[in-house]
């Protein structure tokens, strides 16, 4: 399957799905952080200039602020709860270890110092190249630190099964068939009814026939889509 999720196993023996963020959201997040840093630095310098501390102490503070914004800004934000710089936060990204654990201080320091290596030969050339070539979108600093930038929010592609009068399938179903029917039913709300019908028609052989009405019960719907949803309800335990 063409998918960008990664699995990380926990000590409890279950797999956690991680969704690494690709080059585009990360470049955008960097852009936002860059703007924030430039604005913060300008504000500090203007404030220092306006109090007439343009020389000596003022310039020292300027250098220290520059240094802090350049090297410490990402480290500090990635160690705070949320594990993301404001730019990453704005794009819903988060830094974590590639084991799915929260990022450790040593890893946050390593990945951010090695930004200097990602910057080479110019404008983050190696970093972007590394992200484009790897399935987990790590830049060099991420590889060395064992960290991962992931999308924080979970995607919910499937919702609850749509309500339907449960109906038994025509024949006993194999496990793979049950899984296929339940998955399609879970996605039914995101598809047009016509498309559900088309897909459900593939399972016509196992769905209850439209003229099947045992014991005077209401006959099943004509269209295959609603009949498939009815079978899904039956499989989920609605009898």
């Amino acid at each position, binding site marked *: 399957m063409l998918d960008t999720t990664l699995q990380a196993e926990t000590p409890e023996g279950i797999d956690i799905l991680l969704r690494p963020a690709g080059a585009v959201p990360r470049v955008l997040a960097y852009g936002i952080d860059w703007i924030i840093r430039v604005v913060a630095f300008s504000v500090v310098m203007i404030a220092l200039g306006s109090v007439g501390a343009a020389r*000596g102490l003022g310039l*020292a503070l300027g250098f220290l602020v520059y240094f802090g914004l350049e090297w410490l800004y990402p480290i500090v934000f990635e160690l705070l709860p949320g594990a993301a710089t404001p730019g990453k936060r704005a794009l819903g990204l988060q830094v974590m270890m590639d084991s799915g654990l929260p990022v450790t201080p040593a890893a946050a320091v390593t990945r951010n110092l090695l930004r200097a290596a990602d910057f080479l030969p110019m404008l983050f050339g190696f970093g972007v190249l590394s992200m484009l070539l790897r399935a987990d979108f790590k830049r060099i600093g991420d590889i060395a630190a064992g960290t991962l930038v992931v999308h924080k929010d979970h995607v919910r592609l499937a919702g609850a099964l749509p309500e339907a009068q449960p109906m038994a399938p025509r024949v006993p179903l194999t496990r793979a068939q049950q899984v296929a029917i339940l998955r399609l039913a879970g996605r039914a709300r995101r598809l047009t009814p016509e498309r559900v019908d088309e897909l459900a028609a593939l399972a016509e052989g196992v769905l209850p026939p439209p003229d099947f009405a045992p014991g005077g019960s209401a006959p099943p719907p004509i269209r295959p889509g609603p009949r498939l949803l009815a079978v899904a309800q039956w499989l989920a335990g609605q009898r």
Partner: protein
Amino acid sequence: MGMTPRQFEARYEPAWQELEHALAALDRGRSRRRKTGPFPTGGVPVTGAARIAQLYRQCCEHLALARERAYPVHLVARLEVLTADAHQRIYRRHDFGLAALRDLLLRRVPVAVRALRWHLLVAALVFVLPALVVGVATWVAPQFALTVVDAGAIRNFDKMYGPEAGEHLGRTSADDWKMFGFYVMHNVGIAFQCFAAGITLGVGSLVMLAYNGLLLGAVAGLLVTRGDSERFFSFVITHSAFELTAIVLAGATGLKLGHALLAPGRRTRTQALLRAARETSPVVTGFFVMLLIAAMLEAFWSSSAWIAPGVKYGVGAACWLLVLAYLGLQGRGAAPRDGGR
């Protein structure tokens, strides 16, 4: 016939909801920063924390069952989200306090430095040899310095250390703060680049070490031939104990990274790089702190011309001994702290 998905959901729904509520309460409690037990639980009483761990393990089990029995996707997805959230909270860092910092500075930094001894030797040689060669060459034939440094830079150094430099070695005390900021930014930048350049199989680190060595040799040789040696050496002796050591440490960490990439041994290159970065991370912290100390000394102590050169030589020698003893002797035989990472 096993349990149907509906029965499964109805039976365990209360546990899932309890865990969801407990996690939400944990987030609210964290902002209050209250500690109510032998270990920080973000404001939740210890019995509550134990309950969360219990619920988390149950949900892990439910997730494994739901996946194995191919229950409807929304059910599995819900459990995935729930366990992933709980996992992040339960395995988050608990101590970031002074004990960890103390252990880092008093044991892990010097131990990690000593583990790098061969890389340190190479880095020191690559730094010191060019400095000595260029220094002696400049001493013999002063115009040799021009092959390394351009004339403008030499004029600057002349102004700083030459005879016309006054009370404050070429700058006023208002400049001290400015210079502190400049030294921090400049030196730490160089050191970090030395470290990161190791990614080019170590070549970058070697080049940077050698280049900085050349500069140092040229400047020192030039000032000695002009008869400004006392002014120069009394200026640099104190902070160089921290600064030159830190540059060599940074170069050694870079070489370690390059070495791991070049000769990964029985690991993949990625694994080797990861391991090297993990092993050298205390050293990175170490040279960072040393550069901060060096910048402070350079800005406020080294530049003060009212301190007699003899005093500066004495303090400088003490600093060299201190740094070498710290890196060479500190933390031998100390037991690793429990759970220290």
